[in-house]
């Protein structure tokens, strides 16, 4: 067997991984298979490349903030390509940015007020809400975000969601699931709404209050960390203390979430592309 340099194999594996990220023709797909089969180390290098990408995904999903990179000004080389004086560019750029932001705000504001997020079966999703609270949707779930000046209201339509609530005493955070209301200040908790099952509220951190205004039998209860509350129909809300191990097991679905829209620092929208690079695309 021809001993090929492992680094060379890595390079080819990385190229295949990148190419397979786009659209491969069937011939290319055949070429990929042939390459994989030619040497076990090819398969190994490719699997290792995928593992590194999964590693990146995983670290990114859990520590997106830590990975977030400082907001950066456009690269000098890009400015040079435009043939524009750098200072003038930045000036003009920031004006356009301000204008675009203002226009964006006007167009998007009503939508932001009542945004809905959902996941399909097998998907989980993390969303950073406008107040800095974080919402993690479990599989097959849907929420409506209804923020007003006085309160932050979320309607859980189906499934399960975890809320990491940003503290704001003047603007309470309220989750509505069926006839159950969960009120929180700064805390982390999940609410689960499944068909034909009582609503469940699991508190990981802080304190929340669970209320069912339309069910007289169910008195409001206050939950502290590591407590689960179950709200069956027409019955008092029952609570149970859990160990933190049980809580983290219950939240294990969170581990593979993949945040979207988490890196505003790397943003230049399509309308911003300099004319030259647009024609090259």
């Amino acid at each position: 067997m021809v001993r090929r340099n492992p680094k060379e194999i890595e390079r080819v594996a990385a190229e295949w991984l990148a190419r397979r990220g786009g659209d491969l023709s069937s011939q290319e797909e055949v070429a990929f298979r042939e390459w994989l089969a030619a040497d076990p180390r090819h398969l190994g290098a490719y699997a290792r490349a995928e593992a590194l990408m999964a590693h990146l995904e995983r670290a990114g999903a859990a520590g997106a903030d830590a990975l977030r990179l400082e907001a950066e000004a456009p690269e000098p080389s890009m400015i040079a390509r435009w043939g524009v004086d750098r200072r003038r560019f930045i000036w003009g750029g920031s004006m356009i940015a301000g204008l675009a932001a203002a226009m964006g705000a006007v167009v998007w504001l009503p939508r932001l007020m009542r945004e809905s997020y959902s996941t399909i079966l097998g998907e989980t999703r993390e969303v950073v809400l406008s107040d800095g609270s974080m919402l993690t949707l479990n599989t097959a779930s849907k929420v409506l975000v209804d923020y007003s000046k006085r309160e932050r209201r979320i309607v859980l339509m189906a499934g399960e969601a975890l809320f990491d609530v940003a503290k704001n005493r003047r603007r309470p955070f309220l989750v509505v699931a069926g006839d159950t209301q969960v009120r929180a200040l700064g805390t982390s908790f999940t609410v689960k709404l499944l068909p034909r099952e009582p609503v469940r509220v699991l508190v990981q951190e802080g304190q929340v209050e669970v209320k069912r205004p339309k069910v007289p039998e169910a008195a409001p209860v206050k939950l502290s960390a590591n407590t689960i509350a179950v709200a069956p129909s027409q019955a008092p809300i029952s609570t149970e203390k859990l160990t933190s191990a049980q809580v983290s097991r219950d939240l294990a679905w969170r581990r593979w979430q993949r945040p979207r829209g988490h890196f505003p620092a790397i943003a230049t929208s399509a309308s911003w592309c300099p004319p030259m690079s647009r024609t090259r695309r």
Partner: protein
Amino acid sequence: MDVDFRDRGRWLARHLLPHEPLLRTRLRRMNIYGLEVDDVIQEVYARIASQPNLDAIKYPLRYAIQTATAIAIDHMRHTRVVPINAVGDLEKLEVLAPEASPEQQLEFREEVTAVSRLLAQLPRRTREVLILRRVEGLSQRETAERLCISVKTVEKHMAGGVAALMALFGRGGKSAHQTSSWQNKAADHG
């Protein structure tokens, strides 16, 4: 094998990747003639990735060590250069490390810092492409639009970034040759 490359990648990221540095150190210490550590690592990945049922592997670290040992033995059989002390050296690989879950071994925060440290060593554009593609999950086209570059350029950055991460992870960016000769020296001294 095709559909679940991603899936397998995830399993490997959790159960094999964290042990790779340890495997490398042990393989280098074995000091077997003509045995290239990078080759063995690639073969370990190949053998484990082609296991039909990864979840059946209860002790991934032990399994990885056994696999690496089998590969080293194969290598010695093929080259027929069996140094007298080679069998004794194999034991160095076999010394069992405590089986700890990757989470326990490496606190998640540390893992995140490790990843950002790796990313920090890449060119800015390449880093952005990797993050947009794999952390944010954008498609190639979406990434191209976000960064105002062509799809072809995204692909190039992606390939470059993956290759660089492969070289950096476990080897600390040094070439295989440098690393192994340094290790040999260290072994001679110790």
